[in-house]
């Protein structure tokens, strides 16, 4: 029973693991130099030499996908860290202290939630211009409200628990309450949010880069590759299919991972 149920989780672990390995390998080795153009070999279908074919400049798609994974992970991890740090601080303050501070922070988060999907990121990039760093900052800011909300609700929930009250009655201060009592219990939903936020960042980055607003060449990016592949959708469909598949698998991996983690923590309660 339990085994069957955790199959998706294991698939998630497998996907993420495989892509992490691919990313690590790509740092030291790719089958071809990702930037090497080969005008004789443009839009070549998959072959032994180019397992995923080549693009419109004759570059090896496999090598470019491998290199692109570095960007994906860098952007995913950095933006999650930004969102987590600021979201946690805001959410913890709102949840622990309550009152007007909570009101202001919650309204601010509501306001940020009003920007659907990647609109907030698009706006920030419109102002700060494109590029890797700005993309990371924009996606990081975009993920703050999700972390803030989950942290806030955990804090509010656990603040009322008897074990917290009992600890206050024993003389514990705010520091002890937050770091010894609330945080260890709130950590797993925050981890789930982090996994989801990671996959969300990958999706958004690919969207932004596809629109030409994200990562700029020569930085490799899957979203950017899709933009380049679009005109050749009928003549070189593998270009589109392979690149999109890379994004999908990475996102799917993290989503399954998050879902499995959530299941596990639900079971414990």
């Amino acid at each position, binding site marked *: 029973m339990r085994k069957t149920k955790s199959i998706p989780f294991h698939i998630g672990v497998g996907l993420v693991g495989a892509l992490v390995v691919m990313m690590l390998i790509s740092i030291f080795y790719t089958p071809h130099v990702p930037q090497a153009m080969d005008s004789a070999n443009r839009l070549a279908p998959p072959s032994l030499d180019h397992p995923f074919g080549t693009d419109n400049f004759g570059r090896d798609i496999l090598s470019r996908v491998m290199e692109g994974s570095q960007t994906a992970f860098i952007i995913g991890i950095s933006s999650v860290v930004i969102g987590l740090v600021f979201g946690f601080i805001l959410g913890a303050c709102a949840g622990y202290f309550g009152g007007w501070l909570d009101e202001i922070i919650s309204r601010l988060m509501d306001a940020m939630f009003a920007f659907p*999907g*990647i609109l907030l990121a698009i706006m920030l990039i419109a*102002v700060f211009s494109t590029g890797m760093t700005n993309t990371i900052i924009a996606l990081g800011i975009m993920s703050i409200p999700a972390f803030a909300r989950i942290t806030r609700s955990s804090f509010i929930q656990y603040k009322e628990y008897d074990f917290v009250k009992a600890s206050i009655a024993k003389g514990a201060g705010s520091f002890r309450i937050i770091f010894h009592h609330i945080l260890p219990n709130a950590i797993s939903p925050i981890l789930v949010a982090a996994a989801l936020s990671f996959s969300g960042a990958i999706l958004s980055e690919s*969207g932004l880069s*596809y629109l030409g*607003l994200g990562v700029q060449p020569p930085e490799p990016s899957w979203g950017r590759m*899709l933009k380049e592949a679009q005109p050749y959708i009928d003549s070189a*469909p593998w270009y*589109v299919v392979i690149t999109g598949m890379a994004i999908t698998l990475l996102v799917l991996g993290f989503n399954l991972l998050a879902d499995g983690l959530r299941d596990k923590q639900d079971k414990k309660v």
Partner: protein
Amino acid sequence: MRYILYKLSSFFFTIVMVSVIIFFVFQLLPGNPAQIILGMDAEPAQVAQLEKQLGLDRSAVERYLDWVAGLFQGDLGESLRYQLPVRDILMDRIPITASLAILSLILTVCMGLPLGILIARFDGKWVSVMLNIVTQLGISIPSFWFGFILILVFGVILQLFPTYGYVPWSENFIGALQSFFLPSLAIAIGNIAIVIRYLRNTILDQAKMDYVRTARVKGLKERTILYGHILRNSLIPVLTIMGLIVADTLGGSIIIENVFSLPGLGNLLIQSITSRDFPLVQSMVLYIAVLVLLINFIVDILYKIVDPRIRQKG
């Protein structure tokens, strides 16, 4: 009533907050905006004129109040690139984005709800595992890439649907429907998966509730229990995520319009950013954000109306 007033006030407060955020983010433009807009080699006189046009010679607070006052009168400013009132430009674009969003929402509801119920009814070990993977896949696929795949399959290979551009509804209803169908589906796919998962989970959660046990010991048929008792209670939480789904649909249309070359708001937004038409971008972002807030507000109120526990208090 009190509840509605409370929600209304927090709705307006949030709108103000959103407008302040948007306005001041655009104040953060590095350097002289007029210079940036016109490029480095622009004539100083031109720059000065544009500065005046943009009101850069006044304080930020003044300009903000001005902007807001304009918004209240339906004046969203003037586009730099088109030299037209923003409102007129938007009016041309809105029907396209609206068609796309509405069609996509219809697809989400019409496919998500029945499938969610169906899958909850046939819940089982393997069903739930398969469902989990398939719906997660639906959520994980980038909508614009799914758009490519739809173009590839239905446009290029099967040649059933047009792959770009659109036909206005007034011209040819079927043709319009055809031109909007693929992009709507591309936007909807993730939301359909979300609705299926969410509805299935709430149905299965509700099925464990005590009132279901009460219904069962009355001798009711499982069908009656599902449709008469469980489903009502399950649809209320689904309603709460509708706000999120609408927001997601609007966000999705920004990208998808660019995939299918549909001249809607999203398409305009990206073009305006590329051409640094900031007044237009600023107004458009606000417009979309307010729309999302409004829909969330409506969903909130609707939710209270549907649920007697809250209805009778307010």
